[in-house]
């Protein structure tokens, strides 16, 4: 008797390498895996909102407000908020403040990141440069970049440049580390093969070094971007002409919990969105990976 019927199985699995701590396989190759996955995501988000709502109902309003209140706060104050005007921020709403923050983050990340990537990939090749870059990066990498924030404020004042510089500085250091590692991780066999075809340095850089490092560099950019958000908001709280950080500071002083939560939610959502965009970009550029 041979086995012919084809039905959905719930038991056996192809050799997979994912396990949970109980020693049982964590991945299952069943039809409808995607559907179950979506279900889990929806349930997971629901869980988050549910816990928040429950906590808000149990805690005083001075500590936590419901997701609904935060949502409506964002809705009404996005374009213009009377409360913020009191703080000398001008005729603004969350939207324009967010624009300021996003602008600074991206400017800092791109400029600092570009410098970092350049130095990082170059130093992976040139030993002399490496000797110079490594100790600097080692120190700066373990050190909280935050300590520079008050210094920059003193030196450059309450201007956008202060925050952009902080973000750029941080991004440069991080991307040097990531780019170095990315360049080192390229299998030397690729270059050797290229050399047997007579490929010169420029060709090898363009066709091996750059494409080979892109996946890991974008991975590093993701991590750097996530931290850059916090750095920017923090720097804004310390002192800035505009930005979500200033709004947070204003609401803290006003003891306005819904406004404070609204700002945090906006920042979090924007961070998630930019991350998704970066991942999408990565997928496009590294379709081969």
């Amino acid at each position, binding site marked *: 008797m041979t*086995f012919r019927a*084809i039905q959905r*199985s719930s*038991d*056996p699995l192809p*050799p997979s390498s994912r396990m949970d701590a109980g020693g049982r396989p964590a991945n299952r190759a069943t039809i409808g*895996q995607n559907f179950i996955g979506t279900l889990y995501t929806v349930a997971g988000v629901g869980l988050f909102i549910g816990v928040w709502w429950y906590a808000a109902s149990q805690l005083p309003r001075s500590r936590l407000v419901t997701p609904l209140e935060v949502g409506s706060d964002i809705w009404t104050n996005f374009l213009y908020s009377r409360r913020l005007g009191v703080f000398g921020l001008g005729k603004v709403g969350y939207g324009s403040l967010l624009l300021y923050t996003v602008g600074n983050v991206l400017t800092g990340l791109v400029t600092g990141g570009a410098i970092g990537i350049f130095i990082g990939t170059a130093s992976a090749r040139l030993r002399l440069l490496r000797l110079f870059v490594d100790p600097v990066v080692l120190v700066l990498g373990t050190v909280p970049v935050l300590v520079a924030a008050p210094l920059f404020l003193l030196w450059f004042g309450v201007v956008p440049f202060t925050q952009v510089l902080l973000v750029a500085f941080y991004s440069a250091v991080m991307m040097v580390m990531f780019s170095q590692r990315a360049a080192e991780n390229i299998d030397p066999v690729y270059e050797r093969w290229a050399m047997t075809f007579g490929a010169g340095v420029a060709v090898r850089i363009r066709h091996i070094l750059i494409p080979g490092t892109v996946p890991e560099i974008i991975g590093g950019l993701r991590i750097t971007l996530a931290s850059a958000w916090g750095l920017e908001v923090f720097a804004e709280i310390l002192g800035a002409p505009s930005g979500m950080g200033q709004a947070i500071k204003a609401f803290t002083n006003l003891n306005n919990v819904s406004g404070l939560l609204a700002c945090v939610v906006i920042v979090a959502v924007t961070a998630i969105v930019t991350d998704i965009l970066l991942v999408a970009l990565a997928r496009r550029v590294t379709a081969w990976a």
Partner: protein
Amino acid sequence: MDPRKPALAVRDIGVRFVRADGTPVVALDGVSLQVFPGEFVCILGRSGHGKTTLLNVVAGLLRAQHGEVRVMDQLVTGPGIDRGVIFQQDAVFPWMRVEDNVAFGLRVRNISTQERLQIAREHLALVGLSSVARAWPRELSGGMRGRVAIAAVFANDPPILLADEPFGALDYVTRRQLQAVLQDLWRRTGKTVLFVTHDVDEAMMLGTRVIVIKNGGIAEDRAIDLPMPRSDDDVATQEGLAIKHLLLHHIGLE
């Protein structure tokens, strides 16, 4: 063990997977076989034809949708200490010293430290690794780690031994050496062995019997009555070459 009763009985095992894109794959299509005590059965076949799947079902690491496996007439429902396994991947625990790795199975059975280390060291001696008993696995070569795996399985003394292409990743010389080690231990202990391989020469050198798996089913089940221990000369006889050609034919090379 009664030599007339099968040590291992596989009855009508059917296994199918569903690939990530939804297409079904029949890995094993109603496979049945019996292995008697003391046999060294080589399961030969090309990659993807089902031999590793069969081994995993016998080991209890994979559940079949259909059929059953009995070891000494006991139904197999999962992995057990009656079936030792030498894995295809390197399963030596890197965080345990060599002798602790070999003694691991004994530790699980709550055998005292002194006793289990002694048994471990005896087995390390049998595979020629006495000098590295306290070394970390990362200090050993691939071949040496292969010996550790063999020693570990034999130290636990299971009646049945299952091996899943354990020497595949090694160079020719190391492979031949480990085959000799395994064969030597098998002859000393009289275990029943199920050995999966894609290498015809390996099957010829090690097996008392060879089963060819093709497309999820058994294509050939042949005894190899050549002398043991086997030398290259024994395999190069007329009888040996006849078997080899038969196997090559089933594999698809002739």
